[in-house]
């Protein structure tokens, strides 16, 4: 199975994950500061800044696009509960 390396810049931890893993599945187990609320693209609790590797993340759904727009965040911010890791990326909690 294809692997990807997801780095949590705020706690200095890199996790090797199977490609297709959702960020939230990793972030909540690893104890990074990325938080979750609804887990379904509604609340925007899980805003995550992508420092690099945006091109290795899954496409945004219309729901994610709407929620991100509602929070007025820059283009390199994603929802951790929606985003699948397809290749290497470096992330940190938005605003953290």
């Amino acid at each position: 199975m294809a692997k990807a390396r997801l780095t949590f810049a705020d706690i200095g931890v890199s996790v090797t994950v199977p490609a297709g893993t959702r960020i939230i599945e990793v972030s909540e187990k690893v104890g990074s500061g990325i938080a979750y609320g609804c887990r379904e693209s509604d609340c925007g609790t899980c805003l995550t800044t992508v420092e690099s590797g945006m091109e290795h993340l899954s496409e945004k759904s219309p729901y994610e696009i709407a929620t991100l727009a509602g929070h007025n965040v820059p283009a390199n911010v994603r929802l951790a509960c929606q985003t699948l890791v397809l290749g290497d990326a470096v992330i940190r909690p938005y605003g953290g």
Partner: protein
Amino acid sequence: MSVAAAVTERIHWIGALDPGMRTFDVILKTPSGTTYNSYCVRGSEGVAIIDTVKLECADQFFARLQQFADYGEIRAIVLNHLEPDHSGCLPELLRRAPQAKLYVSESAQLMLKALVKQDGLAFVPVTTGDSVSLGDRTLRFLHTPYLHWPDTQCTYVPEERVLFSGDVFGCHFCDRRMFNDAVGDFRFAFEYYFHHIMRPFKRHVLDALALIEPLDLAAIAPSHGPILRDRPRDYVARYRELATPRLKRETDNGDRTLIVFYISSYGNTRRMAEAICDGAAEVPGLRLSLYDLEGSPVEPLVDLVEEADAILIGSPTINGDAVKPVWDLLSSFAGIHVKGKVAGAFGSFGWSGEAVRMIEDRLRGLKMRVPVAGVKVKLIPAREEILACRDFGRQVGEFLIGRQVTREIDFSELVSAA
């Protein structure tokens, strides 16, 4: 039911009194009941209604509204906060004033749809800088989210110098004299309300104050309790005082604060706590404290956590769980802001040792960061186990001052650990 109603010549209180209310939102006591404040603002080209009241008080609201305006004159309805005690009469008000435009904050849009389950509900989302003209009076909006829900905003009428602040500066206090210079002593209610409603959102309070402080203020008209027309700035200043971290004011030398809490029956977890402190003490720039949870009620400890950068919690495993004082402390964190703080767990155990993992799960659930995996020691800590505790303390300390240890792990380790 005469109630003092004129805030200014153009602004009238049209809310509801609820003197019998004793428990609010499950979490608050209301020994004098409360009021739901809504207001009617008259401009040369129409009327605005600011907030409504809870559905059970609809009769009071509509009766008062009709004293000051005809439904046909209502041009704007503003909801500063969507909680049902302020939005409850919205559907009926829209039915009676179908021509009125509804204004809510940008962050309120999805919530509005979940509260007013009505197809085709039209509204205009607004934010700081947006305004609505009523002819010779203007509604200006301030985006002040998370006071205390994501949707909250304030509305200012510059020509009257009145701020409609929503729950900010509000309190549960019911007195038909309505104005702060006329009602009974409501200081306790004001402080209590801040403590239980605004406290988890202190940072957002400070952001909102940055927008509010520059305003010229003749009165603050909140959505609960007395209208503040006598020295309104005193209440703004009090909010700033309550929202500003104290420890930082006293020791603003850049030190990071780490607090180690423990509880221990035979002294094993205590010995671990002491070794953790010794390890952390090797890191420069840390302000360290050690507390035995048995020695204090929860409240003052929660105050400490609120201003700390990091906390570590030690518990023995007793009957397959961490002990009650630990859960009492952790269950009180909902009242303060802990998201993003650094945290960790440790403890001695006899055979199964569930406590450390359970505490870590709770810390992560509270959205705290847990950068260093906790230490567990079987019964009495041996020399090398004491060294492991020192290491743990040092690693957390180094993480705190930004000397980050990087780690590489495989997903399978996380999955099997959970």
